[in-house]
């Protein structure tokens, strides 16, 4: 028996209960839900919440990873291990057209890479398996256009988001109705902040990719961003040298597009302390967010998560 329940509910308890409620609603009202598993800390929390939401049943949906082929090697290893541990089905999809075109973010740029290897690939995967609801780990505090998104975000048959015509959402009442071909993006972590995610990871003892912890890693300094050399596909430009530096990642994406931060935070407590003292926002290390101040909204309208 758990004595915690007698105490007043804390902030994390409320967030947890809200996320679990959202997942159960979607599972009850949709035909074929799927969880987009992007391997990062938010996905780790979301997967943990899913295990809680349906216990003692297993979450009644598979995990889907849209693999751009440019993820960190440690992320892929972590993904396969977590899938095996939870016993959930793991679906992996890569855009075959992108592979045929040999898309390289350092050559073709982050915008084209994101469009082909992430946005298009995601749409292909959702269509291929006919998923009508996809859980994503996005949070409203991450970025300005995400702050505007509903918990259940409606997408038309072309997967487009219309930010001017979102369904109103009241209390805990979610409208999951949709026509053939239409789908929902569902964000159970909408009301979580970066600090909440780390506090919860610490409280629950959730496993995260080791890249979040500081370690000596081979990096190059490219335009002020520290890019980790994860494999030999990263071509050095003139004047760049690989240096071993004590770094960690605050957010994880494709390795050539994700900047490391210099940090010695090697434990959860140190990460949380560092985050609380930080003067910069979480997505500062994401190149794709700097393509213009409306770039995330543009990507989302086109079907990006």
């Amino acid at each position, binding site marked *: *028996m*758990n*004595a915690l*329940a*007698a105490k007043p509910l804390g*902030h*994390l308890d*409320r967030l947890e*209960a809200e996320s*679990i*409620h959202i997942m*159960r609603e979607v*599972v*009850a009202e949709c035909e074929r839900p799927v969880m987009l598993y992007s391997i990062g800390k938010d996905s780790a929390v979301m997967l943990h919440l899913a*295990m*809680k*939401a*349906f*216990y*003692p*049943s*297993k979450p*009644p949906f598979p995990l889907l990873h849209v693999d751009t082929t440019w993820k960190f090697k440690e992320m892929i290893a972590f993904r396969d291990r977590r899938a095996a*541990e*939870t*016993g959930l089905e793991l679906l992996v999809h890569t855009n075959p057209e992108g592979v045929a075109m040999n898309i390289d973010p350092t050559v073709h740029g982050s915008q084209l890479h994101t469009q082909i290897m992430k946005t298009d690939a995601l749409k292909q995967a959702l269509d291929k398996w006919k998923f009508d609801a996809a859980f994503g780990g996005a949070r*409203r*505090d991450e*970025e*300005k*256009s995400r*702050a*505007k998104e509903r918990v259940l975000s409606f997408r038309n048959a072309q997967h487009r988001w219309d*930010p*001017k015509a*979102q369904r*109103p*959402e*009241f*209390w805990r*009442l979610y*409208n999951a*109705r949709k026509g053939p071909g239409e789908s929902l993006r569902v964000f159970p972590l909408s*009301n979580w902040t970066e*600090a909440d995610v780390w*506090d919860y990871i*610490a*409280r*629950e*003892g959730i*496993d995260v990719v080791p890249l979040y912890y500081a370690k000596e890693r081979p990096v190059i300094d490219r335009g002020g961003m520290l890019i980790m050399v994860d494999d030999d596909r990263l071509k050095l430009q003139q004047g760049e040298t690989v240096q071993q530096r004590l770094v960690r990642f605050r957010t994880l994406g494709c390795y050539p597009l994700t900047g490391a931060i210099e940090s010695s935070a090697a434990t*959860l*407590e140190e990460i*949380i302390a560092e985050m609380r003292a930080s*003067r*910069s*926002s979480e997505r500062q290390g994401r190149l794709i967010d700097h393509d213009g*101040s*409306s770039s995330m*909204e543009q990507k989302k309208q086109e079907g990006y998560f």
Partner: protein
Amino acid sequence: MHGGLATPAPLRAPAGPAPADKPLLRFITCGSVDDGKSTLIGRLLYDADLAADDLIAALEQDSKKHGTQGDDLDFALLVDGLAAEREQGITIDVAYRYFATEKRKFIVADTPGHVQYTRNMATGASTAELAVLLVDARRGLLDQTRRHSVIVSMLGVRHVVVAVNKMDLVSYSQEIFADIERDFRAFAEHLRFLTIQVIPLVAKDGDNLVHASKKMDWYSGPPLLAYLESVASDDNARVLPFRFPVQWVNRPSHDFRGFSGFIAGGNVKPGDIVRILPSGRDTTIARIVTYDGDLAHAVAGQSVTLTLTEEIDISRGDMLVSPVSPAKIGDRLSARLLWLVREPLTLDKSYLLKLGARMTPAFVKQVASHIQIETGLAEPLADSSQTLAFNEIGEAELWLDTAIACDLYEDNRETGGFILIDRVTNETVAVGMVKQSAWTERSARNGVEASYASMEGVPPPDHLLHPTPLRSLVKSLSWRVPGSVITFGAAFLFTQDTGISAAITGTEIVSKIVLYYLHERLWTRFAVGLTKNEPPHDDTGL
């Protein structure tokens, strides 16, 4: 979908220091367009040093491109996240911001002021405890200010801060401020706010946001942030009667049958007797199951899975409630509706009503009155064919296809609020708050008692036609006594012997009474040939 058992919780890694659990306040900013809501939030984050450096750098860039403040920072751009919003300088949809001070955590919903986006404002208001209502000091209370006041009050927001903004443009005049305060308090008399705080401020300059204004020393109250930190939040959900809408039946194997849901009121522990609605059957809680182990006690605000001591057919949409103060069952609702879409409400059209985890077809029979936004009062409609147009609020009567369990909205937001969904477009067309609930006889027989009876495995009983054993016994005696007198007479006529006649009669009395009683009891099991009186189908319940 039920794919076997999940592995239980792994051993916990050594947990970090418990985060200081500060109380949370959810509030919204609302008011008419251009009254400075987004600017207020942006400036508040900036002054309280809660905006990240790279966001401020981006703000400096954006201010040059889209800003409306000349060379100064345009703080609205810190929150207006959509491209169309930045281009047009208006807020279209509600933006949620998360920040914490030393004393408190906040979730603020910055809502749009434009009439056409009222529904997005209502979205933000539905989960708020407090509303910061902005008023432009030059313009005073506008229609939209009143409409927002009515909506936040209707949605159950009990605390309001009237932020009289742009005081610099009225020379920081105490008289103008006092006039607006008096107007608002007079208007709000009909509304249901528990507290009203009126604060003069200049959002773009930060006067009375985080720091007290030096230019308005006549104002002796707290600045906005200090007030928000101190206002009491009303979390009374756990003292309400127990409410548990069943979201999902959890059935991983034949040995386990649990009911998953979010506790919408009160608390529960194993051994508690609960009533299942709408069937009305009482049962007992066996376990409160969670991934982290069984709980001895669970309270409103938790998501749990309950198991019962008996095998009972319960499905999504049913509600487990306290048998002492159960929710109401009804198929006629009297409710306040806010109409959210351009296509007006159509009477007698079948919409889907969602309340808790229950979805049922419903139609609006009549709109009884409109709420006048100037006064906040209901005005009865003379013409019964009149309905609700975009953004209009009214009192309506709804007829539901099946009876549902619900509470009055003023008693419980979670089980008293509902939405209407268009069956063709799938849009959410209205949000409603239950004021009254009633139950017609017809649905009582066809819907609810039948499902109760079917669980018992017997046909629907009609208690008026169902004799008790005592009645059967009395009936057999009243039949037997005159019958036995005739039997004795007949026996004596043939035998002329009192002894033999008495013996025959005695044997017959005992055997026939038993036989009659058994026969009568047997017939109560069959409904063949029984008719009932149809009660009149009036709808006086509301």
